[in-house]
Each structure stands twice: as C-alpha cells, then as structure tokens.
C-alpha cells in the first residue's frame, strides 16, 4: 500500500466524492431522527400511569395531581375531549369532577364522580390511579396520614429511563448509516462505471482504493457518532475513551461497507442485504429498548460490543476497567472484519481484471 496514493485518493473522495442526496441523508438523517426521538419519544416512553381530569369547577385536586411524580396528569375542557383521550389511550383513566367537589369532600357529603377507563390500560395502572385519586380526595378532606412510610432501595443500580434506552439505537444509526453506505455505494458506483478497473491498472493498488474509501467512511461515521452523542449530552465522562470506542465502531462500520461494496454488484442487492443486516446490526439496540428481550440476543451481534461500552461510559461514568473486555472483543471484531475486507478486495480485483 502506498500512503501517498492513499492520501491523493482520500482527498479525491472527500472533495469530489458523492455530493448528492445520499451524502446529505447520511448526515441529515441521524441528526433529524435523533432530534425527533429525543424531543418526542424521550418524554413519551414512560411507565407512569396517565391520568386525565376534566374539572367542571376549580378543584385543588387537579393541582395536587399535577404535582405528583407517580402519575402523568393531563387536563381537558370537555367530556367529549376526555372521552376521546381515553379511547385513544392518551390517558389510562379520565375523571370528570363535579363543580362542587372540594366543598362536598370537605363537608363529608357523598360526591358522585364519573371515571372513564381505557380498555387497554393495565390492571396495575388502574389500581394505582384509583388509590392515588382516593389519596388526593383524602388530602382535600383533611384526613391525616395514618402511617409513616420509610422506603429503602435494595441493591445499587437504578432503573433505565427511556432516553437512555433509545441512545444505542440513535448511536448505531449515526455510526452505521454513513460508515456502511458511503464506502459501499462508492465502490459499487466505481465498479458500475468501470472507473475502478481504470484505477487499478495505474500504479494504484486495489488496497489503496479500499483504504481511501474506508477512511472516508470512518471519518464520516466517527463525526456523526460524535455529533449524535453531543446532541444527546452523552459526552460527560471520559470523552477520549468515548471517542476511542466510537472510532473502533466507525472502523467496524466502514469495514462492513467495504466488504459489501466489494462483493455486491449493484445497489439493489445492497438494499436486500441491508434488509437482513440492518436487523442484525440494530438488534442490540432493541435489547436495550426492551429489556424483556434476553440479553444473549444482543451479545451474539458484533454491534453489542460497540453499544455496551458507549452506554457504560456515557451513562454510568464507566472507565477503562469497566469496558476493557468488550472493547477488546470489539478490536477483535474489527481485525476479523479487516481480514475479510482484505480478502474481498482481492476477490474484487480478480473480478474486475
């Protein structure tokens, strides 16, 4: 391999490479999806029961409910609105409060309340909302708590919020869309236009071409990974270690792209592979999103060894000691894929000769 030639090819790839829609998408899509996921789903994926209130008067119960952390309280202006919210699953239980609720409760006279329950709400959500509503009414009635409750957590770690669960998906998308597609599409394009053959009959070797395209993939992939982690405020602890892991992930993505580019004749086939490969690459993200899926499903996928150290560093402030085993496996995967990329590059050379 000739470093000077690799440098010239790299410059050409960076300056005159794909400037079309795909490059824009490689950059725009992860950022756009990251923003949408963070803004929309970051606050939507919650296990809290959702409580709807339509208040015909101005009950203090509504304010008290809104101050609770255990439930999400939404207010509605009419009965039809609250019924619609319950029917769509926006809230698990919707309650219509009468105008004189507070006075009646304080006087101890019976109050009639209508509750709409979403048929798909879980039984445990219903029971929590019933108890919470009764507690709030007792608060209005001035009933004192009968007991002192002391809560203690056993064990060390806390629960994983949804914005953290979604992070692996966003990171994988950022690293792999650019890392795979850019080198793969570039190689396929060169093969189809016969420019790859033209290149390798000059002193430039197939290795030089692959190295240049691979480096472009790594640069774009790494840059997107850094951007996405910055957008998601994940660069808090050990930034250098995080960049190192991202770089190893970018290498993996780019190697996958080179292997695909070397073996695949046209873009249709690349898509057919992405259809299967996509779910394989993104499987660890699904495991993080839904912890009910057994962890071994994620561990058999190579991307797990990229995702796990990133989550460990960014969310648990982990250090080298905590991630070393998985990072070493990631290095092993990179070396294995490098060998495969070299092998496939030779095969590609034979095919175009």
């Amino acid at each position, binding site marked *: 391999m000739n470093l000077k030639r690799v440098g010239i090819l790299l410059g050409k790839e960076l300056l005159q490479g794909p400037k079309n829609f795909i490059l824009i*998408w490689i950059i725009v899509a992860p950022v756009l999806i990251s923003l949408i996921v963070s803004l929309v789903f970051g606050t939507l994926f919650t296990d809290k029961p959702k409580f709807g209130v339509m208040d015909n008067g101005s009950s203090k119960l509504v304010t008290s409910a809104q101050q609770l952390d255990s439930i999400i309280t939404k207010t509605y202006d009419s009965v039809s609105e609250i019924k619609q919210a319950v029917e769509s699953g926006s809230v698990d239980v919707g309650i219509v409060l009468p105008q004189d609720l507070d006075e009646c*409760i304080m006087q101890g006279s019976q*109050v009639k309340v209508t509750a709409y*329950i979403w048929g798909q709400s879980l039984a445990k959500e219903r029971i929590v909302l019933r108890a919470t509503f009764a507690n709030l009414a*007792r608060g209005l009635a001035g009933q004192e708590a*009968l007991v*002192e409750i002391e809560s203690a957590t056993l064990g060390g770690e806390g*629960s994983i919020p949804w914005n953290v669960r979604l992070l692996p998906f966003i990171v994988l998308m950022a690293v792999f869309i650019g890392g795979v597609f850019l080198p793969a599409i570039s190689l396929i394009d060169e093969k189809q236009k016969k420019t790859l053959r033209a290149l390798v009959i000059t002193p430039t070797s197939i290795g030089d071409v692959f190295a240049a395209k691979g480096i472009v993939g790594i640069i774009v992939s790494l840059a997107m990974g850094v951007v996405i982690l910055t957008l998601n405020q994940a660069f808090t602890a050990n930034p250098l270690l995080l960049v190192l892991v991202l770089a190893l992930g970018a290498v993996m993505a780019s190697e996958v792209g080179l292997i695909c580019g070397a073996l695949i004749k046209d873009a249709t086939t690349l*898509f*057919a592979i992405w259809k299967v490969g996509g779910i394989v690459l993104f499987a660890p993200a699904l495991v993080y999103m839904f912890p009910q899926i057994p962890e071994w499903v994620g561990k058999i996928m190579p991307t797990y060894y990229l995702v796990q150290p990133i989550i460990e560093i960014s969310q648990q402030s982990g250090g080298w000691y905590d991630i070393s085993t998985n990072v070493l496996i990631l290095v092993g995967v990179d070396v294995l894929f490098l060998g495969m990329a070299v092998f496939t590059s030779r095969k590609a050379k034979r095919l175009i000769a």
Partner: protein
Amino acid sequence: MMNPHIISVLVSKDLSLFFRNRFIAVITVLGIVAYLGMYFAMPGSVDETLEIAFYAPVIPPVFDQMKDSGLELRALESERAVKEAVKKGEYLSGIVLPTELMQTLLAGQKPTINLYFGPDVPVESKEAVEALVTELLYLQSGEQVALSITEHILGPDLVGKQISLRDRIRPMFVVFLVMFETFGLANLITEEIERGTIRALLVTPMSIKDLFVAKGITGICLALSQGVLFMAIVGGMNARPLVMLVALFLGAVLATGVSFIVATMARDFMSVLGWGVIAFIILIIPSMSVLFPGTVSGWVRAIPSYYLIETVHQATNFRASWDQVGSNLLTLLGIDLVLIWVGIAALRRKAR
C-alpha cells in the same frame, strides 16, 4: 388495450430475474427469517399485576382479603425473606408491617411501615406503591372517603388478555417487509429509464401501459408474498384471513404506487435511496400509534400506511370484521388508486 400475454411475459421475466439471482432470493428469505426471529424473541405476554411481598407478624384482614386483578399481595415468613425476594426481583416491592400495627392504629398513633424496592424500580413506581399502601391502611382502619365513582370502560376491556409487545410490533414488521419493496421496484424502473431499455421495450408491440401494469404486478407479488408468509407464520392470518389478505394486497399496491412516484423523482440509485428513505420513514410513523397508543395525534391519519397498520392491528389483535375495518380498506384503496394513477402519469411523461 392492454395485452395480457405481454404483461404475463414481462412479469415472469422480472420475477425470474429476481429469483435467478440466488443471492437476492436467499437474502429475501433470510430477511423474513430475521423478522420472525425478532418477533419470537419478544415477550408473548403482558405482566399487568403489581406483585408485592409482605411480612406481618399479624396479618391485617385487608391484606388477606385484597383480591384485585392488578394487585397480588403475597405473605412471606420473615422480613429477611421479603428483602431477599425483592432484591432478586421476584417482587416489585416488599412491605414490612410492625408487630403491633392494629393496636397502634386503634390508639390513634402513627406506626412506621417499611417499604423495600429492587434496584430497577423507578421513582414513580415507588410513589405509586406508597400511595397504594397508604390507601390499604385507610381501608383497614375503616376511614372511608365520601366518593361514589361510576366507572365506564371505553373500548374492549383487555384486563387479563392484554396485547403482548410482539403482537403490537407485528403491524410494524409487516409494513417494514411490504414497504421495503418500494426501494427494489423503484430502482428497477429507474434503471430501465436511465439505461434506455424502456425505449427498447416500447418499440416492441408492448404499450407503456403494459409495462407499468407488469412492473406493478411484479412489485405487488413480491411485497404481498413476503407479507402473507410472515403473517401466516406469526399467526396473523388466523383471526380474519380474508380481511388480512385484502389489507396486505392493498398494502402491496400502496408500496407499488409509492415506488412509481419515487422512481419518477429519482435519476439513479442514490436518489432512489434518498427519496425512498423519506417515504419509508413517513410510512413507518403510524405503527407508533399501535406500539405506543395515544402517543401520536390525529394527523397520523394523513399518512396512507395508517389505514394498513390500523387494519392489520384491528384484525389480528381484536378480530375486527369487515364492518369495522371496511372504511379503512376503502380509504386505502382510494389512496392506492390515486398514487398509482399519479405515479404512472408522471412516469409516462418521464419515459417519453
């Protein structure tokens, strides 16, 4: 007039080209296998019960009598057993009641109740359990709150028969499989136009209408067969097979219509990818309304795939009949016809 013979020849040519490429054929099958694998790896049931362990030297009657479908109170033999069980994650929470709870309550004093939680329990669940325990003890002491609640269940009551995660994600997987064919078909048409083979075909007795009908049939066959195979294996065809078949067919037509429009805008594979991804992401959005109910507002009905996803969801998870999903299917059919017409008209102009 369309020529059925020419159309059938073109369809069989496209399909044989597809399957002659063994790699694409194998990878297509593997794609279905991968989605099936993910489907079966997902939980097939929903845990909708708060499982709470407790230890009480004297069990208060309300703890013993509490029989609610959302709550399971299990008495253990010691405080240590409660802590161990909670730590292992066997229960959401553990309650330890003091020895003289009842006497202390009767004396008007405030006893202390210890609640234990596992490490994965979020703050909101802890507060919810605290509210629940407080309410149980109010009930125990006989202190009623003057509320008369009339409950109305809206929609089918699914307590005890909730839709599992795998069944909620099923419509999304189907749309993935069906809509992915958009890329393939759009690329096929773009290549024909860009390479000029479309002109070569048009100098034969074949009309442009024959060509698009043939491409459409090819796309529908590929998308429909994958969707039907997937649904048949995951049991999605069991409840309403005919409804499902029609829904998937209209979904395949939708994918074909979208691919015609994508092919109109695209000049090469790169732009097929660019426009295809935009279309794909938009078409996937309605599946969120099934996966996370109540999270997507009414505007989602403006996305054509909503009517496919909603029909698949209703037919498979609620055994919805023709009457219930008929309007969805008719809307989808209307959208399909418009998309196909727009797509063919635009492609015809481009091909000329």
